[in-house]
């Protein structure tokens, strides 16, 4: 059962890559900041230096969000793929992100100030993700094939987008602005004061995933086998949907929808690590997801002088062809 030498080597490589790329991430941007300045901002912060303020108030929050978004969405994708026994499942394709969007839209458009506050947006994004997680769970009990579930997820997404568009057309200018800014999605909107709560919530979600590695390992065999081996399926399903809602909700609330990470990264991890042990799969998805968004965001910042690339656009450009590749490989 242990971890093979090759797999632990890849894990260690990922662990080394993340701080290296994190440093690069902190140094790139509209203003060049040297590694010495970054080091000083981290160890001996002095608010008299503008560059150190930029590091601590702008670049560290953005870096944190890149790491958290990548890690969270990849873990969610992995959990959903195991739960539905479907390698093409993920928070985006099954409409969980859209559920969050719908609830945030509804809450902003109601015009109640509380709902448009940070806390209101987080709460609504979580509730939306949870509700649509339950809806997908319900449909997964009705349909037997993997493709049918994916189609239902896509249709749910399309349905919600239409509904959100309708809400937008019916809302006034101020509400529209708040929602549009949110829906564009980016890693930049988080302020350093909001970081602790986001870190706390996503760590709870990811820790939750590690707490259920044993049933996840068995769930790979299908629900019937898992039941025969003594797994309480109903409880595990509910825990997975809750973790999905927490992680997707918190990331969607602050970064907007980010596509394909949750689908592409866990598949890449499975192909690379060739195992079904979820301790390795979760650890690897978490690290590789974080690294993936980190590198995407470095690319975005390097391209910024020429054109502005939203994070959601870049992950789709990279992720969608990757997913097509996986499908072709499976159908062969």
């Amino acid at each position: 059962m242990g971890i093979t030498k090759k797999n632990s080597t890849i894990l260690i490589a990922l662990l080394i890559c993340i701080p290296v790329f994190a440093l690069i991430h902190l140094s790139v941007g509209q203003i060049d900041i040297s590694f010495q300045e970054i080091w000083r901002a981290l160890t001996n912060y002095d608010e008299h230096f503008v560059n150190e303020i930029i590091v601590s108030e702008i670049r560290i929050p953005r870096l944190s969000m890149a790491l958290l978004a990548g890690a969270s969405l990849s873990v969610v994708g992995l959990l959903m793929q195991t739960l539905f026994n479907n390698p093409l499942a993920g928070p985006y394709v099954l409409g969980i992100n859209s559920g969050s969007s719908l609830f945030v839209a509804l809450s902003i458009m109601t015009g109640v100030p509380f709902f448009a506050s940070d806390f209101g947006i987080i709460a609504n994004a979580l509730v939306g993700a949870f509700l649509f997680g339950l809806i997908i769970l319900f449909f997964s009990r009705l349909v037997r094939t993997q493709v049918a579930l994916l189609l239902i997820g896509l249709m749910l997404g399309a349905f919600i987008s239409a509904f959100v568009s309708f809400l937008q057309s019916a809302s006034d200018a101020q509400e529209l602005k708040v929602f549009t800014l949110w829906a564009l999605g980016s890693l930049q909107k988080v302020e350093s004061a909001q970081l602790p709560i986001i870190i706390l919530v996503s760590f709870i979600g990811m820790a939750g995933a590690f707490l259920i590695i044993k049933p996840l390992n068995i769930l790979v065999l299908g629900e019937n086998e898992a039941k025969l081996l003594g797994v309480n399926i109903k409880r595990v399903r509910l825990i997975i949907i809750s973790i999905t809602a927490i992680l997707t909700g918190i990331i969607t609330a602050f970064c907007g929808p980010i596509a394909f990470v949750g689908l592409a990264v866990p598949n890449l991890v499975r192909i690379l690590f060739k195992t079904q042990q979820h301790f390795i799969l979760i650890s690897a998805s978490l690290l590789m997801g974080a690294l993936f968004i980190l590198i995407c965001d470095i690319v975005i910042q390097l391209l910024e002088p020429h054109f502005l690339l939203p994070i959601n656009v870049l992950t789709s450009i990279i992720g969608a062809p990757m997913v097509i590749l996986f499908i072709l490989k499976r159908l062969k």
Partner: protein
Amino acid sequence: MIRTEDLKIGYHSPLLQVENFTLQKGELYFLIGKNGSGKSTFLKTISGQLSPISGRAFLNEKLSTEIPFRDLPKTVSFVSSHFPIVDFLKVEDFIALGRNSHTSYFGKLQASDSQVINSTIKRLQISHLIGRFTSELSDGEKQLVAIAKALVQETPIILLDEPTAFLDYSNKTLVLETLKRISVEMEKCIILSSHDLDMSLEMNCPFLVVNFQEKSLQLIDSSVSKQDLLRIAFE
């Protein structure tokens, strides 16, 4: 090991009346009957996936419906007719999943678990399959590996749903001989459903036969003739 008392089984309405009988440890039983006659229903009832319509079944002297959900995998193991199709699942990881109800919260294998797994692998002579992916195995190898997973559960009762259905002659013989040997050596009570009447007769084991006319499940001695067996099960 398995004792039935006025047991009626079925999904929503009674499908079969099970005779009162006691199945012993150290024996291999062949469950014979027409398609759709209720063989799977019986296996599902004994393995706790289905509640009896009425009457009682005792597993290892405990009433089946009173065995807690978590303890059932320590009493009955079940080898389903379809081997799960999963990418990148190593044979040793697959077999180790059978230890689920014995391991602690995170499922880490202790020395005692590894010992059970290793001795099972040795007993079934499948050590050459360790390190391979389950998706790469032949049908016969898959069946042996699935039996290994059931054995590491260390249950007194093992049920198999048509374990020889997809196998060629030599693999059928290998699987059946192995099961027979296990039932004797390890004193297990093993029931397997099968369509292969000739093969079953060769093994010289007792039969559980679904009497299609009477809608009942009967225990029949191994000395039964093929003609009688055919008459009871298929007429």
